[in-house]
């Protein structure tokens, strides 16, 4: 037995479990899905070939079109938001200061929570009489007072600084002692005005129907915005961790040179941090797009608390078609939708590459 044959056999033996798993759970499953998508199949009677009928049927199905729209809007929105938030959090905690590990742990903590537990918590937060609406109402209630206080404090500070300068003192426009004095004066004025009853005292009742609505904001149903907020809370920390790893690989000399040259923070951010993080940005956006296109668990967990058309995504549509409540399984329709989801995912990743995002990543390395 030749040495090369032995090497090949050994390689194949090591690869066999992977090849087997891919063959069974990907190649075979994919081939079956393609076949089922061309048939009418209810699990009980043998599949009957119907050609492209399932594809034509779902492309004319209003719920499917809603699912596609919801999926794409959600996917783009959450990818942009969690990439930005993850990056900002990573930059914020990439500091060598006392207690930073506590902040890192606190920021990362949401991503290790169970999806079901977080959904239950957010169901409570998003109630019409829940704490989010209560917080918004409180914010709007204190808004006029807060605005008055800030205006009075800034105005007082400007007056005090102008007075100092007029007297010939070398005072800046943000002297701490002036700011403190202005804050005290603004507080006294606010208490006086409030005590005189010149500010509105009616509580602001905010009743945003976060869960039960089909109304849309920026093209997306309000409940889907609620799911977006929830996912942002749980997935942004994972992105933060990836960005943090990338930030810690940026050589310290780059920052030192920038500082010597007098670079400001935003210049360092734009010209050193972002280009160095391009591979991570590519990774984060790709995994995020693929993951969010398959959004299912939160949608299923919200269940009847949210109207179906406000929360349906492609992955949920597939499940709903395979196991519709009270009627026969429509495996053909579900398979056709699954094939469209696969095609959509591939198109988006290809578009991402066409937009040069991946090439930029290689250049950044």
């Amino acid at each position, binding site marked *: 037995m030749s040495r090369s044959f032995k090497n090949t056999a050994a390689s194949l033996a090591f690869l066999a479990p992977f090849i087997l798993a891919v063959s069974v759970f990907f190649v075979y499953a994919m081939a079956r899905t393609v076949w089922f998508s061309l048939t009418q199949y209810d699990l*009980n009677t043998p599949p009957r070939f119907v050609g492209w009928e399932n594809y034509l049927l779902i492309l004319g199905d209003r719920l499917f079109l809603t699912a596609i729209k919801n999926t794409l809007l959600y996917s783009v929105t959450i990818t942009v938001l969690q990439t930005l938030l993850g990056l900002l959090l990573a930059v914020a905690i990439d500091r060598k200061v006392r207690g930073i590990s506590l902040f890192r742990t606190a920021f990362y903590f949401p991503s290790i929570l169970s999806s079901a537990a977080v959904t239950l918590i957010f169901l409570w937060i998003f109630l019409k009489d829940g704490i989010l609406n209560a917080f918004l109402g409180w914010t709007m209630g204190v808004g006029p007072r807060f605005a008055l206080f800030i205006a009075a404090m800034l105005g007082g500070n400007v007056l005090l600084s102008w007075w100092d300068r007029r007297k010939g003192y070398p005072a800046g426009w943000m002297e701490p002692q002036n700011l403190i004095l202005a804050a005290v004066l603004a507080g006294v004025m606010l208490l006086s005005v409030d005590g005189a009853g010149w500010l509105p005292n009616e509580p602001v009742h905010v009743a945003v129907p976060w869960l039960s*609505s089909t109304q849309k904001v920026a093209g997306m149903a309000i409940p889907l915005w609620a799911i977006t907020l929830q996912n942002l809370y749980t997935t942004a920390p994972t992105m933060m961790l990836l960005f943090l790893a990338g930030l810690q690989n940026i050589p310290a000399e780059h920052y030192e040179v920038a500082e010597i040259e007098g670079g400001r923070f935003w210049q360092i951010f734009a010209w050193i941090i972002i280009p160095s993080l391009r591979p991570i940005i590519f990774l984060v956006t790709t995994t995020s797009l693929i993951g969010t296109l398959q959004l299912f668990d939160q949608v299923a967990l919200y269940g009847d608390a949210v109207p179906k058309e406000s929360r349906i995504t492609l992955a949920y549509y597939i499940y709903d078609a395979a196991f519709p409540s009270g009627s026969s*399984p429509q495996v053909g329709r579900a398979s056709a939708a699954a094939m469209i989801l696969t095609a959509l995912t591939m198109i988006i990743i290809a578009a991402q590459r066409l937009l040069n995002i991946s090439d930029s990543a290689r250049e950044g390395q």
Partner: protein
Amino acid sequence: MSSIKRIGLGTLLAAALASQAEAETKITAAGWDDLGQMMSKIVDPQIAATGASASFLQVPADFDKFLQNGLSAGTAPDLFYVDISWAYPIFASGKVAELPQDEFAQTLAAMPQALREAFYQNGKLYGIAKDFATLAIAYNRDLFDDAGVDYPSDDDSWESLGAKLTALHAALGEGYYGACLPASYDRFGAVAFAYGWRPFDTQGKTVLDERFASALAFWRGLKDSGAGIVPQDIGASWTGDCLKSEKVGIAIEGPWINGFLRDNAPAMHYGSTMMPKGPSAERGNFLYTVSWSLNAATKDLPSALATLKALVSIEAQTFRLENYGAIPIDSDLSKFSYLAAEGAANDLVRRSFRGSQEGRIYPFSGGRSGGAWVEVINSVIADVMINDAKIDDALARGQAKLDALP
């Protein structure tokens, strides 16, 4: 062959034979309750003569999906629950055995008529109801006392009950409501039936007519007056949750609320009434029921049939009544001494039983279209109750969706 090998082979053979013997005499029933105790106490003694024993497999969630998969893969249990709301495709699958009517003639004859007819499809009997329920009104006596408003009564119409709920809200103020108004067919449907609407005409078509519109206008009016609120808006997922909060006067529920209130609001003084009457003095109600059905591929038909008979026997009905509050399928309630006791819980059970015999009663089912039909009706109600759509617009949109259903 070495002695070790011989012993090993012998052991394997014995184990195989033992498991084969066990498989031949074991009947498995499945559902979402926990009936293990009932199988050993009630069913096993009754089927002992067949040489079989029975066990129960509890599948608490997504039972319909479990059953669809099991039937298609040939792994479904011998006997299983079938909820009337998703019965149509299961019976149409050809995987459920038609039951011999003569063997169950006595049980069927003792049932209320609506229940007897519930599990026939195309003239064939596919299941025997295990229990049933209809809706009633459960109300919090203390809230009505505090508001100085008369309790709901069996003589109430929806209009007179609405007036009481409005008075309760006015007396107790913001944060207190007369009723929770789910934006869904499973409760609103009963109101629409009382207003004369029927879910399917003789051709199986659904028409969202003026009777449906009148009922919806009444439902919406309760919300607009502040007397009613959608459950989700006060953090409740169903009207039982609303009642439990002690800030809502009534709940439209069945006897299942008894156990919930016992566990979650043990100090509440509650009473019950029949569902109110509509404009033509008729009540409307849903029949909620679940059957015991038989797998057509069962390996031991005589034992499976014997087990089914035991599962619907008076003893089994009594066990389920006393342990789970399930309403017996036998019309003669005098057979069940448990129901003779006074108390709010039994009052509600008796009213739920009466609910199956008075007024316009329809099974909770979406017909051939199943859940898709129910979703359309839900969307119409939600459009009006949540999205503040005009009733005529919502009905027009809903009718178009219904007409497009296969």
